[in-house]
């Protein structure tokens, strides 16, 4: 029974890691590649660790496996965020069919400063002057 469960976890984890690698190879740009590897890769490694913990079954091994899974789950989103941000800063081209780039035109590649959003005619009288002064100061600075 334990062997069957372990086999299922190991093969499922390895399958998810294969899907992650396939996504890394086949996806069209940096952000979609990261989308494939970060999620499927962590899931695959986590499933394999669960399989190992079930198979050995000692408390110390279970604790170590849970620690590995916790590290993966804590660190993968942070690393993906840092690399995606660095890629955007570097000007890595997006996929030709990307249709929403909310940072386009608002990000200054020299100073790494984000401008405020485009000025919209808003009904809110308290907010409007503050937005104007912000964008003026960022333009002059």
């Amino acid at each position: 029974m334990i062997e069957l469960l372990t086999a299922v976890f190991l093969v499922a984890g390895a399958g998810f890691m294969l899907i992650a690698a396939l996504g890394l190879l086949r996806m069209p740009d940096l952000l979609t590649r990261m989308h494939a590897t970060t999620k499927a890769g962590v899931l695959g490694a986590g499933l394999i660790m669960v399989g190992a913990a079930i198979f050995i079954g000692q408390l110390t091994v279970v604790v170590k496996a849970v620690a590995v899974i916790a590290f993966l789950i804590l660190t993968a989103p942070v690393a993906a965020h840092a690399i995606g941000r660095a890629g955007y800063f570097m000007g890595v081209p997006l996929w030709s069919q990307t249709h929403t780039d909310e940072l386009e035109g608002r990000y200054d590649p020299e100073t790494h400063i984000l401008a405020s959003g485009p000025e919209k005619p808003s009904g809110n009288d308290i907010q409007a002057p503050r937005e104007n002064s912000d964008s003026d100061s960022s333009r002059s600075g």
Partner: protein
Amino acid sequence: MFDYAIFVAYLLLSLALVLSFVRLVLGPSLPDRVVALELLASLTVGFIGVAVVATGRSAFLDVAMVLALTAFLAAIAFARYLEKGGHRIDD
């Protein structure tokens, strides 16, 4: 049957290793290679997990833990370098 499952897991992981190595070689940009390296590190963690089951030596799990942490540090260091290095693709 259990040995067969371990063999299949090794096979799938090796295939994944080859595919991400192809992306590591192809690039085209440095962040793509960093993402490929990160996946290689988590594939190695997966290999270690399968090796723990195959050999019954649970001490390998310490290696997996350290590897998961160093891969994170490497990714952060690369991101930092890319961001602060002032090196842009369209120059």
